[in-house]
């Protein structure tokens, strides 16, 4: 059977089944301190129980018939027609933001993140992009660091 034809719920259940089994395997390998090994309830008990329940629930979902068998619920249709390009670009921007916030500092990295975010989503007016990012970030930084006394790392670049 072509996997793209299966119901999207079943696919979700399949993912969870895999996850539960991996989780269960890791749970079996949790190292216990020697004094705990004889206890009725150890650090492994709950994870093991959860893994078993997870396997049962996902198997039930895979085996039981699904309520709606409509064409649009197929896995291949669930991911179709969505605006992936913008979302992937935004995710990339967020990763970039996380990587740069400590090196080039809060103010510059945030301005870059916001300006690029506006651009990705279709804003092309330079004035709006600049006005939407720079004053907001500077005010935000001022309120946090000067008024509320929250320390914000200026960034490694500015130490040297």
């Amino acid at each position, binding site marked *: 059977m072509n996997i793209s034809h299966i119901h*999207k*719920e079943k*696919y*979700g*259940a399949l993912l*969870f089944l895999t*996850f*539960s089994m991996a*989780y269960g395997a*890791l*749970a079996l390998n*949790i*190292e*216990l*301190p020697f004094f*705990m090994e004889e*206890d*009725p309830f150890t*650090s492994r008990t*709950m*994870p093991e129980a*959860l*893994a078993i329940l*997870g396997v049962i*629930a*996902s198997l*039930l*979902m895979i085996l*039981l018939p*699904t*309520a*709606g068998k409509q064409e649009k619920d197929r896995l291949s249709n*669930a*991911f179709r027609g*969505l*605006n*992936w390009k*913008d*979302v992937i670009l*935004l*995710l990339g921007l*967020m*990763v970039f*933001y*996380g*990587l740069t*916030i400590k090196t080039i500092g809060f103010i510059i990295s*945030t301005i870059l*993140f*916001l300006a690029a*975010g*506006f651009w990705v*989503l*279709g*804003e092309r007016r330079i004035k*709006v992009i600049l006005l*939407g990012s720079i004053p907001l970030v500077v005010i935000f930084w001022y309120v946090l660091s000067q008024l509320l006394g*929250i320390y*914000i*790392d200026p960034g490694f670049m500015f130490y040297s």
Partner: protein
Amino acid sequence: MLEGIYTGLTTAFLPLNLLLVFVGCFAGTFIGMLPGLGPISAIALMIPITYGFNPSSGMILMAGVYYGAIFGGSTSSILINAPGVAGTVATSFDGYPMAQQGKAGKALALAAYSSFSGGTIAAIFLLIAAPALASVSLSFQSSDYFALMVLGLTAVSAFAGKGGFLKASIMTLFGLMIATIGTDGSSGVQRFTFGRLDLIDGISFLLLAMATFALSEALMVILKKDKVSKKAEEAAQGNLGSLKVSKEEVKDIAPTIGRSSVLGFFVGVLPGAGATIASFLAYGMERNLSRGKEKERFGKGSPRGLAAPETANNAACSGSFVPLLTLGIPGSGTTAVMLGALLSYGIRPGPRLFVEEPQVFWSVIISMYVGNVMLLILNLPLIPYIAKLLVLPRQILTPLILFFSLIGVYLVSFNTFDIQLMIFIAIIALVLRILDFPMAPMLLGFILGRMMEENLRRALLINDGSYSFLWERPITLTILIITLLTVMAPVFSYLKQKRSEKLVTA
């Protein structure tokens, strides 16, 4: 009790707290109005701000945001038929037709009055029910708490609706599994940390809430491409019409409000039910009770059809605070987020809260009422202006929401690993949302996971390592039997449906 109410009143009426309720209601209305963003996102976005205040003020702010978000959801349901919140879907059944008939102002006013009345009646119930239940639950032991949490989690799945039971259960289990990441408090054993220092303390609830709600809801809107922006533009530019409601109309909806408040409150108290189910039940009840011409108007702009769900969802919001404040067990995703916030203040809700931190307990109850008043006298007149915010361009708003979510988590830990982890979780949440898996049960499972483990462990310790307390302690046994019945309910309805299908085909 009177002393408690007095304490609550003095705390809630401090100028700072009044300001916070106002800010909360306003911010909540704004966020709730954005299609796609619900109260959980609204509260999660506010949590980093509340860390600067004391617990009472923080809770007051969040209660304001909660009410505001529900009201904001009603606004977008009525004006553009795009509910920001599941709890206000039923509002759009009659609210949107009214707006199309040029009576948007009246619909908004009716919604505000019904919300207010529902909130008022429920607040009175809460005043009576919460302390009473708190004193009963003082006799609860670890095993009872464990059983209650199991009940809470199964109820969430049972109320998930047709075909949703297994999906919600899977998500609950997923949340429970995520909760086991980090150091096990009792033994010091590291679980699922993969040797990473960043995971030793586990995943913070704020991070999870932001990633699975604020971040993924904002990205989901982009992913699905906005189809409502044109309607929003029309609504913002158009005239809302008069906000006045006539005497006859008030008389007409008064009994509806009475019935729906009671129904809403009790549904809200039930674990797992909450505002969405309350609003649908109230709508259904009113439609069944009405006769003749009035019945035909349902779905075409009936004031009763608008008042019922609006009253009930607000009453349910108050009701959902009962289990949170008295047992420390949240019944919905929204109250789960609030519980997470309280825990990070070092406050553990439950019957002891009533004894140890009466000012938090009472000021939350009182400020919920203040929030209702605020919504009525401040938000309603501002609605024509707030409606203009609906047209704030998506391309500006979304990056700002993403920024506030990321920075809110980052400013707590100052660890950039958290930002990357958030993005990773948000991607998983996006996929799960596309596959139609609900997020709220996961959050609930996550919040309750550690408490469940702790209580079960303690119960076993007290009972010399034997599980016999599960059937020997009457309270535990009763709760577990109710749990079993809740689990069986969807199974029975499934079997019944199967049988009727067979009869039809035979």
